[in-house]
């Protein structure tokens, strides 16, 4: 299985490459990708450097161009596709039908992956993107159980990549607009969820409130650990109960499912986190490299080492991990 790692900048790319990634995914420095954060992503010259560095170490480079352009922004996306093709990247990860259509017609030799933002959760959807745009790979949304992943792969015309570690979208990617409901900006239109520009931290005598677009997402007592106010991980009141009505502040860690993923025919495992630091990317890549190598050496005896699990737990959001949707009871 290929290990696909995030790189939000050149140091993170080098960290991923040096610690055993088989492929890295990167984005342009604008709203054409779903990690459109201030100071993140690659200016043109840095992208050239990054691709050169990865290539020199035999690591593949994918460019994420996975938001949804509106008509007045479409030309910029065309230019981004052209640029990716010129750079000779190993794949373009896209979601929008118009972008995929442009890319496949204008650059027939450019390898296309369907982004998780493309929201394809079944093999009939995958057939559409394969028949019309010749996609070679698809990243599955984090909604399927491991047996459903297997079933999709059995019928899929393209290879399948799945998320293995990192922040957990609890909603079907590409079809969640919670963020724009509160802020006007969504992953689809702006490339960011719960954008920092709309976050407020309001301290009073005994508590700290975090608001997104003015909406109270978390209310903490002074001294409590305070997380980022991602909308779906907020604490709300429903029918008299105050709880994480949608999802707790946890991250995905599917390492113990590596044997099942391999048996299912998963082609690549993806690490989330282009917004995270180079140190994070180095740590997580290193551990996953060791895990994949250990699995390859002795597939029947694979179990995650406790030190891997605890190290991954420490760098996870909320310091807790879950198997998420892969494990049916979570659903």
């Amino acid at each position, binding site marked *: 299985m290929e290990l696909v790692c995030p790189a939000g900048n050149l140091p993170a790319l080098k960290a991923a490459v040096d610690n055993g990634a088989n492929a890295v995914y990167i984005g342009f420095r604008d709203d054409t990708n779903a990690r459109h954060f201030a100071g993140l992503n690659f200016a043109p010259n840095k992208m050239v450097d990054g691709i050169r560095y990865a290539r020199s170490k035999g690591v593949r480079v994918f460019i994420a161009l996975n938001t949804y352009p509106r008509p007045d922004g479409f030309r910029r996306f065309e230019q981004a596709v052209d640029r990716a093709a010129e750079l000779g990247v190993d794949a373009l990860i896209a979601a929008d039908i118009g972008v995929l259509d442009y890319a496949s017609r204008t650059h027939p030799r450019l390898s296309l992956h369907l982004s998780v933002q493309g929201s*394809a*959760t*079944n093999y*009939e959807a995958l057939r559409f993107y394969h028949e019309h745009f010749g996609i070679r790979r698809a990243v599955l949304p984090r909604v399927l159980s491991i047996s459903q992943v297997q079933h999709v792969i059995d019928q899929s015309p393209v290879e399948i990549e799945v998320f293995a570690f990192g922040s957990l979208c*609890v909603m*079907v990617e590409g079809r969640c607009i*919670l963020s724009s409901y*509160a802020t006007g900006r969504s992953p689809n239109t702006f490339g960011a969820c719960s954008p920092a520009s709309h976050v407020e931290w309001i301290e009073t005598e005994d508590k700290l409130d975090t608001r997104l677009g003015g909406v109270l997402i978390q209310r903490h007592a002074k001294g409590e650990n305070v997380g980022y106010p991602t909308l779906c991980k*907020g604490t709300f*009141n429903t029918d008299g109960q105050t709880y994480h009505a949608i999802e707790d502040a946890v991250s995905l860690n599917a390492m113990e499912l590596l044997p099942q993923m391999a048996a299912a025919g998963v082609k690549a495992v993806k690490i989330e986190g282009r917004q995270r630091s180079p140190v994070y990317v180095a740590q997580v890549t290193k551990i996953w490299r060791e895990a994949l190598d250990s699995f390859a050496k002795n597939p029947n005896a694979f179990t995650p080492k406790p030190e891997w699990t605890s190290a991954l737990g420490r760098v996870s959001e909320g310091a807790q991990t879950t198997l998420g949707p892969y494990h049916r009871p979570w659903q």
Partner: protein
Amino acid sequence: MTEPQPLTAAPSSRRPRLSLGPISYYWPKAEVDAFYAMVAEAPVDIVYLGETICSKRNQVRFEDWMAIAERLAEHGKEVVLSTLALVEAESELKRLRAICEQSRFLVEANDMGAVQLLAGRPFAIGHSVNCYNDRTLAVLAGQGLKRWVYPVELTRETLEQMQRTRPDGVETEVMAYGRLPLAYSARCFTARHKDLPKDDCRDACIDYADGLVVNTQDDQQFLVLNGIQTQSAHTANLLAELPAMRRLGLDILRISPQSEHMEQIIALFDQALRDSVDPAEAAAQLNALMPVGPCDGYWHGEAGMAKHAIA
């Protein structure tokens, strides 16, 4: 493949038609039957039927939906069969195929899997199929798209751009009234609220005719849990924008059903469309009929929950 019908009248002279979207909640069969008995006599032109949220909701089965469809067709309604938004299991694909293979009624695809099954024949897409630009619309039109629902998070301005290059024979529908569909998940939030596993949810959703309201800790009504779907607590209301929507040459305005006041809501839209009441006045009356209250931010390029044109 049926040739798409060209649009004949000039945009400004056409009166948009009124549609009723699929019921997004889980209602007992008797209530569904009573609801569509009312709809049969109501001034809506198009009715979308079927379960779009959860395949476990089995009060109304395929045969029942087809029977309701026939009754509505007898009353002169154009019936469209709507489909599941999140398609995961083979059993869901099997049901989807049954809907896509019938040729009596047009089908609304709510997932690209359904688009794949319908390609080459006339079909419609709902708001959960992402169509954010003219090139996407053109690709889908090439596959037989006859009607699309404008994504709810996009603005009036973007719609204007889309209308300019819209392919011939493709109708544009806008969700003009209803709680906004914001997200879909593998997780069932209603079952989770009741501490039940999704696989043994015991029809958890049937207790909430308009979903389950999520409040912030400072008591703002914010979202609605509807099984695996999350909606806005506030109800989108674009009726005041009717003059703008007419100028844009929109073909259809959609009302998304709620459990109460539907006859009045439909009547207000109908009166506004027939120019017998001022749209702004009708919109204001609608606000009093909502479970929580109105919002219209997306249309104006703001946060979806914002109230722009609403006093």
